[in-house]
């Protein structure tokens, strides 16, 4: 990487640290434009570090969102050089192109201001897909024993580490083309519930995700699985929902 790095004019002339040329999208839902910043390059530096540097040293009015800085909370995702990334764990060196960075708010979501996207549609669809547990027993019933080797549990476990960062949602062109499409995260959540032996009504889960805007809208472009920062596989989860609802249909069900 060092050998390939171009020496910037400022480094050439004064011997100071190299700078990153960073285009940051500034604006609101009404519109906006990219603004250029020069940010000192460090050996170890994440995209979130770059955005924070701009806010602290160049323009305190820059709006963005973050919380944990360690890839747990899912609040700092942005478009970096055209691809959705969790910025707190994306190293500049991994994604920079000739010392240049373009940072924009997440795709497929309304913009609140600058780099902060409005996550409401994303979470609304999570709710619409029934993304919460519906208990099949009360606290007075004995607890059923489900080992982690149970096939359904294996399927469910594969999808439960989602941090709701909306990277998959931003990467999906089906979401871009159909505002009613539930999107990869909400559908993957439904797939984990469908495979949960303790879910009260698993057929109802299928009902919620197999109609208009549901799993059958997916075109299997696979961007969700490619960009998921937690290396989950929404593509396969949605395929599972397609199989389950198709099987039910051909068995003469709904």
């Amino acid at each position, binding site marked *: 990487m060092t050998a390939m790095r171009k020496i910037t004019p400022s480094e050439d002339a004064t011997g100071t640290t190299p700078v990153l040329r960073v285009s940051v999208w500034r604006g609101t839902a009404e519109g906006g434009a990219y603004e250029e910043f020069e940010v000192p390059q460090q050996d170890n530096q994440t995209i979130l570090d770059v955005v924070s540097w701009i806010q602290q040293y160049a323009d305190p009015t820059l709006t963005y969102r973050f919380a944990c800085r360690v890839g747990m909370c899912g609040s700092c995702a942005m478009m970096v050089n055209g*691809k959705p990334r969790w910025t707190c764990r994306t190293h500049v060196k991994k994604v920079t192109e000739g010392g240049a960075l373009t940072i924009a708010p997440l795709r497929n979501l309304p913009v609140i201001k600058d780099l902060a996207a409005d996550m409401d549609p994303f979470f609304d669809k999570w709710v619409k897909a029934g993304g919460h547990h519906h208990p099949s027993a009360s606290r007075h019933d004995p607890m059923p024993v489900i080992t982690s080797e149970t096939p359904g549990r294996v399927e469910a476990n594969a999808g439960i580490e989602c941090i709701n960062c909306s990277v998959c949602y931003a990467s999906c062109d089906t979401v871009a083309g159909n505002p009613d499409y539930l999107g990869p995260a909400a559908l993957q959540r439904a797939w984990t519930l469908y495979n949960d032996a303790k879910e009260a009504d698993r057929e109802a889960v299928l009902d919620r995700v197999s109609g208009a805007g549901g799993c059958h809208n997916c075109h299997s472009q696979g961007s969700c699985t490619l*960009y998921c920062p937690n290396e989950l596989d929404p593509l396969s989860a949605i395929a599972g929902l397609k199989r389950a609802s198709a099987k039910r249909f051909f068995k003469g069900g709904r």
Partner: protein
Amino acid sequence: MKGMKTHRDHPLWLAYALHRFSGLALAIFLPAHLYVLSLALTDPARLDGFLHWADLPLVKLAEFGLVFLLAAHMLGGLRLLALEFLPWSGPQKSLAASVLAGAFLISGLFFLRAI
């Protein structure tokens, strides 16, 4: 921004795009195809004239394009069916793909010997 990559540059998205493009192109071709076939009943003389035109080398070349679109679209559909309806593991998919590639290689060799 120049030369910036997008979230779309990966094989699965390109496979989707090829499937969509080949489908659209075939859908546009199909009415013309059916119209020409219908000439056999309504206007055989014009059909003969058309078939004569279709013997031109350039038209023959374009037919290769059609066959390519048809093959791409059919294989794309089979790919989707396998992707979505066969919940295979990664190694199983790799094995299936290599078996398919091997079969293609062998049948291709026989085909080349035949011509």
